[in-house]
């Protein structure tokens, strides 16, 4: 290759499913809006050739339920791109079963506050690239930022940075930094938060929470230093009068408005 090729970064739709297997949007991990059938959404994203998908069951852990394998299999069968899954993973067996469904990476979050570590044995067996740690983070009054697990209800003792370093040391190959405060608010990514963690770990970091336009993707990566961006509400537009619209920027737009702006040399 003569010149440095285009730097492509991943732009990842995040799908949240609830206990009944419906697709929902949330605001600050709270108020939910029902969107529709996740399989339909995945079919659309697949047709639009999105880079990758993140699928999160936001009720599995609080319900004390394992992953909904039947639904996950149906979803993965519609996806010719990688799908990462998180929600209700508390045991090695869940991880193995998820890979058998065709899931590319398991996303571990609530289990990070448990005694038994799932990351290290899974990373040894399946490789770091198949294990993602998701850190949902909220600014707590007077206590700084906290990693809030179990659907944003249970604070982890460690600071977000310490926990991030911890999971990487155990073998996680990727970290999702999910801003609870920005979730569903269309107020932009929390660049300071992203930078704080991206600067101190050497695995890819994915920013999530707050995206409102394509330019936000550029800011997160260029100024926050993350390697990829995820977004939920941004790709799923919902209006009372016009229903639900699932969208993804065309490939040419991403090249001109994102990739070319992120060239390293």
């Amino acid at each position, binding site marked *: *290759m003569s010149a*440095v*090729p*285009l730097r*492509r*970064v*991943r732009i990842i739709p995040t799908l949240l499913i609830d206990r009944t297997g419906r697709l929902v949007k949330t605001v600050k991990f709270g108020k939910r809006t029902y969107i529709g059938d996740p399989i339909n959404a995945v079919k659309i994203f*697949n047709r639009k*050739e999105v*880079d*990758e998908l993140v699928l999160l069951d936001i009720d599995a852990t609080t319900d004390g339920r394992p992953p909904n394998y039947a639904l996950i*299999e149906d979803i*993965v*069968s519609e996806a*010719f*791109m*990688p799908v990462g899954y998180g929600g209700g993973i508390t045991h090695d067996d869940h991880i193995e079963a998820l*890979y*058998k*469904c*065709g899931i*590319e990476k398991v996303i571990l979050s609530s289990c990070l506050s448990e005694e038994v570590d799932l990351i290290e044995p899974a990373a*040894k*067996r*399946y*490789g*770091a*690239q*198949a294990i993602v740690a998701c850190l949902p983070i909220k600014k707590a009054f007077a206590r700084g930022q906290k990693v809030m697990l179990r659907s944003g209800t249970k604070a982890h003792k460690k600071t977000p940075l310490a926990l991030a370093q911890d999971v990487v040391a155990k073998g996680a*190959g*990727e970290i999702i930094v999910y801003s609870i405060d920005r979730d569903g608010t269309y107020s932009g990514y929390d660049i300071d938060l992203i930078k704080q963690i991206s600067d101190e770990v*050497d*695995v*890819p*970091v994915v920013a999530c929470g707050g995206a409102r336009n394509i330019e936000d993707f550029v800011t997160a990566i260029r100024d926050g*230093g993350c*390697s*990829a961006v995820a977004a939920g509400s941004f790709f799923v537009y919902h209006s009372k009068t016009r229903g639900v619209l699932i969208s993804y920027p065309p490939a040419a737009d991403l090249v001109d408005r994102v990739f070319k702006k992120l060239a*390293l*040399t």
Partner: protein
Amino acid sequence: MITIIDYDAGNIKSIVNMLRALGVKSQISGVAEDIVNADKLILPGVGHYDHGMRKLAEHGLINAIKEAAQVKKTPLLGICLGAQLLLRGSEEGNQSGLNLIDGDTVAFDRSRMDGKLRVPHMGWADTEKLSDHALSDAFPNDARFYYVHSFHMKTDSPETAVLSAYHGYAFTAGIAKGNILGYQFHPEKSHKYGMGVLKAFSEWVPQ
């Protein structure tokens, strides 16, 4: 019919899904006899090199794969870890590989990479041809695929390095020697580009 080798170290479901969507018949097997008698073989693979080789040994498949590839000249496509296993070995571990193509698997050299880039390499990368090989037509100018790896292939001879991609520097993305092919990316996770590759593999008749 394509036989996908099942040795408990690969994401087989997605490969089956894509082949099915292409209308290509496939079967999954971890039995040595099936491997030796296969028309075509896909060797998938995800995870640690040593784990992969140990699993192949445990399932008694190493000789079967070598016989199919070297004696019967069965078309064989290694994917991701499956491609790396075709070589001598990997810096990732201690196990010897299948040694079907001369070369090694090496870690990404961070000293050659911009500090902003991370390992594992995860994401879509444009992939170009270094030279022609059996499935060259499946790689148009805009070909791009999904990669997820911390190690990359390095062949002894430039002749067997047929594809290149870039992550901090240009690395070998595809290797080929006669009926034996190895691609670092995941065709089964690469939309229409991957479909083109799997379709070409299914239609390929080596001379």
